[in-house]
C-alpha cells in the first residue's frame, strides 16, 4: 500500500456508516414485512377491492306450529358501475332513460350517476324495484353498459304487526351501531340490522353472511374486473314457543277491547315457554324496510308505539293480588279457612271507612267465598290478621319487585308495597296501608309478565321458570344451534293444603264467582279477576287464569290486562278464554268440542305492506 498522506480511519468511519445504514434498513424491513406483513396485506387487499354487498336473507322466524312470522323475499336493486368511460351527454341520456321506468326524479338520478362517475365508485340507483318495471330495466341494461340489476334479500313480515313487540324490527345502522360494528366485516355502512325485540337480541344468529360482488379497482377507483361473486349464507331460523292461534286470539281480543290497549302474556306453567305475547298498541315492522318511494302512502310522522305494555307497563294489580294475600293468610295459620267474616259492604278501620267493591255487601264470607267473590272486606280482616309483613314476604316470594328474567330488554320489575319499604324510608306504616296492601291497591305495581308468572306458579305448585320464547335455532345447513331448556328461577314453598284451597277458590271464581266469562266446556279454568283503581282514569281490567284438561298438569296460564278496561270480569276474562281455547284446541278437539274459534292470524288485518 502506498502512502497517500491520508489516514485510513476516515474510510473506516464511512464504511461503518454505510453498514449501519444497511442494518437499520434491514431492521425496518423486518418490522414492516415480517411483523407487519399480514396487516399491510389486508390494507392492500382493501385498497384494491370494492364490494357491492348483497344482503343475505335473514333467518326466518316461526311460531311453534311453524307459521312463518318473519321471512325474506328477493328484492332487486339497480346499480351503476362507472367503469366505462362515459361522456356527459351519454350520462344525461342514460339518466333520462332510467328515470321514466323508475319513476325517479331525473335531476337527482343524473346527479347520482355523475357523482358515481367522478368518484368512480359503484352506486345503488334504486332499491326494491317493483316487478313490473324489471322488464323495462332489463332492456335498458343491454343498451347502457354499467347499469346492472342485483338481487338481494329483504325482510318481510307476512302478517304485519302480528307479534311485533316480540319480533321487533330491523333498520339502517345509526352511528352507534356503526361504532360497534365497523370492524365486523359482515356489516357495511348501508346494511340493516335488528333494532328491537327478537331481531335485535338474536342479530348474530339471524344475520347470516352477506354475499357480494368483489370488484378490482385501480388507484383512481376505475373498475378493472370482477374478482369474484360470493354467494350469501342465509341466517339461522328461529322457532318460537309462540302458538300462532293463541297469539292471534290474544291480539284480536285486545284490539276488540274497549280501549284497544293492554297486554296478554300466556305461559306454559310446566316450562315457562311463552305461548302468547301481545302488547297493544303495536306497529307494522314492514314499515322500516320500505324504501323511500314506497313510504309515501303511509301516514307520516306517526310516533312508533314501541312501548311494550307486557314488560314495561307497571300497573296496580288490584284483586289478582288476592292470590298472594291468600297464600299469606293461609300460611300464617292465624285465619282458619272456614272462619266466616261479615261483609256489610264496608269495613270501619277506625279512622276511615274502607269499602267493599260490592256496595250491598257479601254477608257471611269464608275463605273460598271471599276469593270467589273477591270480597274486599274478607281480605281486609284476614289480611290484617295475617299481618302486613307476612303479605309482603309472599309478594316477594311471588317475585314482585324482580324481573322475570325473560331475554328481552328493559323489563320493569314492578314494586313491592309493604312495611319494610316504609321502614327503609323512615316513614310510618298505617292500618289503612295494610288494608290497601291486602287487596292489591296502594303502591303495589305489577307488569302483565309478572302476573302471568304468578298464575303459572299457582298452576305448577310454586315454580317460577325463566320465561323464554325461543324454542330452538336451526342454522341454514340444518344444524341445530340452540335448544332451549326450562330453567327454574325460584320456588314458592306453600303447604299442599294452601295450594288446594287457593285452587279451589280460583276454580269457584270461574264457576260461580266474578270470572264466569272465562268458562270453557271441556276444560277446568282457574282464574281471578282484578279491577285496579288508578288515579289517571278508568280502572284497569285484569284477569289471570290457568286451565287443566283431564286433570293433567296445566299447559297454559294466561294474564290479561286491558288498560282502562274497567272490569276484569267483562273486559279481560273473555280474552283469556279465547287464548286458552286456542292454545288447547287439540285437546278440546279430542273431546269433540268445537271451539268458538279465533281467526287465523292475519285474516282480520291487512297483511303487511302490499308488495
Amino acid at each position, binding site marked *: 500500500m502506498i502512502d*497517500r498522506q*491520508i489516514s485510513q480511519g476516515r474510510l473506516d468511519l464511512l*464504511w461503518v456508516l*454505510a453498514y449501519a445504514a*444497511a442494518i437499520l434498513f434491514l431492521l425496518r424491513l423486518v418490522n*414492516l*414485512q415480517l411483523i407487519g406483513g399480514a396487516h399491510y396485506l389486508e*390494507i392492500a*387487499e382493501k385498497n384494491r377491492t370494492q364490494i357491492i354487498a348483497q344482503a343475505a336473507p335473514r333467518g326466518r322466524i316461526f311460531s311453534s306450529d311453524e307459521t312463518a312470522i318473519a321471512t325474506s323475499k328477493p328484492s332487486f336493486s339497480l346499480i351503476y358501475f362507472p367503469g366505462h368511460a362515459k361522456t356527459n351527454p351519454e350520462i344525461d341520456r342514460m339518466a333520462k332513460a332510467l328515470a321514466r321506468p323508475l319513476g325517479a326524479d331525473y335531476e337527482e338520478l343524473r346527479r347520482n350517476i355523475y357523482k358515481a362517475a367522478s368518484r368512480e365508485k359503484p352506486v345503488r340507483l334504486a332499491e326494491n324495484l317493483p316487478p313490473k318495471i324489471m322488464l323495462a330495466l332489463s332492456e335498458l341494461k343491454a343498451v347502457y353498459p354499467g347499469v346492472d340489476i342485483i338481487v338481494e334479500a329483504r325482510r318481510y313480515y307476512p302478517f304485519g304487526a302480528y307479534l311485533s313487540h316480540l319480533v321487533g324490527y330491523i333498520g339502517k345502522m345509526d352511528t352507534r351501531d356503526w361504532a360497534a360494528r365497523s370492524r365486523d366485516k359482515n356489516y357495511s355502512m348501508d346494511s340493516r340490522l335488528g333494532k328491537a325485540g327478537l331481531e335485535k337480541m338474536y342479530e348474530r344468529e339471524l344475520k347470516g353472511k352477506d354475499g357480494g360482488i368483489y370488484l378490482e379497482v*385501480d388507484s383512481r377507483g376505475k373498475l378493472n374486473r370482477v374478482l369474484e361473486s360470493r354467494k350469501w349464507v342465509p341466517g339461522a331460523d328461529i322457532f318460537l314457543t309462540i302458538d300462532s292461534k293463541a297469539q292471534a286470539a290474544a291480539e284480536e281480543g285486545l284490539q276488540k277491547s274497549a280501549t284497544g290497549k293492554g297486554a296478554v302474556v300466556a305461559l306454559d306453567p310446566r316450562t315457562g315457554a311463552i305461548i302468547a305475547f301481545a302488547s297493544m298498541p303495536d306497529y307494522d315492522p314492514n314499515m322500516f324496510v320500505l324504501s323511500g318511494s314506497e313510504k309515501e302512502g303511509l301516514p307520516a310522522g306517526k310516533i312508533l308505539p314501541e312501548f311494550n305494555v307486557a314488560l314495561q307497563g307497571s300497573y296496580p294489580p288490584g284483586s289478582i293480588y288476592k292470590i298472594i294475600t291468600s297464600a299469606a293468610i293461609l300460611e300464617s295459620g292465624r285465619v282458619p279457612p272456614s272462619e266466616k267474616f261479615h261483609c256489610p259492604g264496608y269495613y270501619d278501620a277506625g279512622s276511615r271507612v274502607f269499602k267493599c267493591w260490592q256496595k250491598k255487601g257479601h254477608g257471611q264470607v269464608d275463605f273460598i267465598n271471599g276469593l270467589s267473590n273477591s270480597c274486599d272486606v274478607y281480605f281486609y280482616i284476614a289480611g290484617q290478621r295475617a299481618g302486613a309483613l307476612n303479605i309482603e314476604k309472599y309478594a316477594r316470594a311471588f317475585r314482585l319487585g324482580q324481573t322475570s328474567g325473560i331475554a328481552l330488554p328493559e323489563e320493569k320489575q314492578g314494586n313491592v308495597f309493604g312495611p319494610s319499604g316504609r321502614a327503609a324510608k323512615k316513614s310510618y306504616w298505617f292500618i289503612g296501608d295494610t288494608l290497601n296492601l291486602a287487596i292489591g291497591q296502594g303502591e303495589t305495581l305489577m307488569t302483565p309478565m309478572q302476573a302471568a308468572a304468578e298464575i303459572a306458579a299457582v298452576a305448577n305448585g310454586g315454580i317460577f321458570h325463566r320465561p323464554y320464547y325461543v324454542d330452538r335455532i336451526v342454522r341454514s345447513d340444518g344444524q341445530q344451534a340452540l335448544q332451549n331448556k326450562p330453567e327454574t328461577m325460584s320456588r314458592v314453598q306453600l303447604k299442599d293444603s294452601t295450594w288446594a284451597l287457593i285452587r279451589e277458590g280460583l276454580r269457584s271464581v270461574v264457576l260461580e264467582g266474578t270470572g264466569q266469562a272465562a268458562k270453557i266446556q271441556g276444560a277446568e279454568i282457574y282464574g281471578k279477576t282484578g279491577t285496579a283503581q288508578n288515579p289517571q282514569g278508568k280502572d284497569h281490567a285484569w284477569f289471570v287464569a290457568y286451565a287443566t284438561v283431564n286433570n293433567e298438569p296445566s299447559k297454559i296460564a294466561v294474564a290479561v290486562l286491558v288498560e282502562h278496561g274497567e272490569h276484569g270480569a267483562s273486559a279481560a276474562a273473555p280474552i283469556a278464554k279465547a287464548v286458552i281455547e286456542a292454545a288447547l284446541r287439540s285437546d278440546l278437539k279430542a273431546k269433540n268440542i268445537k271451539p268458538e274459534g279465533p281467526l287465523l292470524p292475519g285474516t282480520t288485518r291487512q297483511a303487511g305492506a302490499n308488495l
Partner: protein
Amino acid sequence: MIFTPGAGLRKNRVDWALFFAAMLLLAIGTIAVFSSVAVLPQQARIIRVQLIAIPIALAVLAAAWSLNYQIYQDQWKFVYGFILLILAGVLLFGVVDKGARSWYRLPFFSIQPSEFARVGLILVLANFLDKRIGKIRELPTVLGAFALCVPVFLLLIKQPDFSAILITFPVALIMLFAAGASVFHLSIIVGYGVISGLFPVLWSIISLNPELLDNPLVGYFFHLSDSWGSASLFVAAVTFGLWLLWRLSVQLYANVTGVYFAGAALVLILGFFSGVLVKNQMKDYQQKRLEVFLSPETDPRGAGYNLLQARIAIGSGGIFGRGIFSGTQSRLGFVPERHTDFILAVVGEEMGFWGMALVTGLYALLLRRIMQGARLARDRFGYLVNCGIFGMFLVYFCMNFGMLLGLTPVAGVPLPLVSYGGSNLVATLMAIGIAESVYARRYALV
C-alpha cells in the same frame, strides 16, 4: 464475459464481486421495472428505453473499465469543461419535462446531462484534492473544492434540478472528508449549504402560510430580501450580534477563539446572500417545484398518501412477496413513480423481504468493494475517485431506502441500477467502470 476489459489484464485484476453485484441489481431492477410498467400507457416506451439503455450502459462500462482512469486527471480541464458545456447546453436546447428543463431530446430517447455531470464532478474534485493534499487542512482548499462545484450547482438550479444538488453536495463533502479535510471547515461548508437552502425554504413556507406574517418578527424576516437596505441591516445585525457574543465569551474567559465567531458570521451572511440569489433566480414554476419538493403536502394527492401507499406495498409483500408481476399495489397504480423513485415498493411487494434483503445486501457488497478499491488504489487520485463513487452510491442508497421506509424526508431520488432511467443507468455503470478501472490498475494484489 462478453467483452475483454482492457489489454494485459489478468483475471484477478477484475473485481468480480463488484461486477456481479451491479449486474444482479440491474437484473432485479429490470424485472421490477417491467412489472411496474405493465399497465402504464407509456409501457412500450419505457421498456424500449430500458432495452436500449442496458447495452449502451454495458458498452460505457466496458469503455470506462478498459480506459486508464488516470487520463481523467490529465485531462481534468476537458472533463470540467464538458460537464459545464452539457449543463449549459441543456438550458438552451433542452426540453421541459415535469417543470424542469433537464433533457436533451434525441430521436429514440432523451439524455439527462446532470447524471453525467455528477460523475464528471467527482473526477474533477478528485484531481483538485489530489493536487492540494498538502494544504488539505486549510480553509482555502475546502472553499476551492466548493468553488469548483458552484458553477455546476448554479446551472442545476437554473433547470431546476434540486435532487441533483441534494445528491452532489453530500458527495463533495464525503470526498473532502475522505481526503482528510478539517471537520471544522466542513461544518462551515455544511452550515453555509444548509443556510443558503434554508432561507429560500423559510421564505417559501411563509408565503405559503400568510397567517405567519402576523408575527412582526416573521414579517421583518420575510421582507429581508426585498431591498439592499434591509439586507445590509441584516448583515450589520449579524456582525454586531456575533461580535457581542465573542466579547461575552472573552469576558467569561471561555477558551474560544474569535475565528469561530467570525466564521459563524461569515457563514450566516454568505448563506443569506446565496439564499437571496437562489430565491431571485427562481421563476414562479420553479418556486412551485421547490415548494412541492420541500413541503410535499402542497401536492394535491399528498406525499403522505404516496408514501403510505408505498409502505403498504412493501409491507404487504411479507416474506416471499406476492409474486413477480402480481403486486396489486403497484400494478393498480396506488404507488406513484413506481418505476423510478419508488421502485423498491415494487421489489418489496412482489419479491418480499428476501428480495429487499437481497437488494440491501448487494448494495452493501457494492459499497464494500468500491471502498476496497479505494484502499488498494495505486495513487491518491484513484483513492479519491473511488471515495467519490462510494459517496455517490451511499447517498443514493440512504436517501432512497430512507425515504421509502419513512426514515428520511421525501425527496425524488432514484435507486441507481434498480430504478428506471436510461441516463442514470449509463452514468452509474460508467462510475462502476471507473471503479473497476481503479481496482484493475492497483499495485498490490490483495
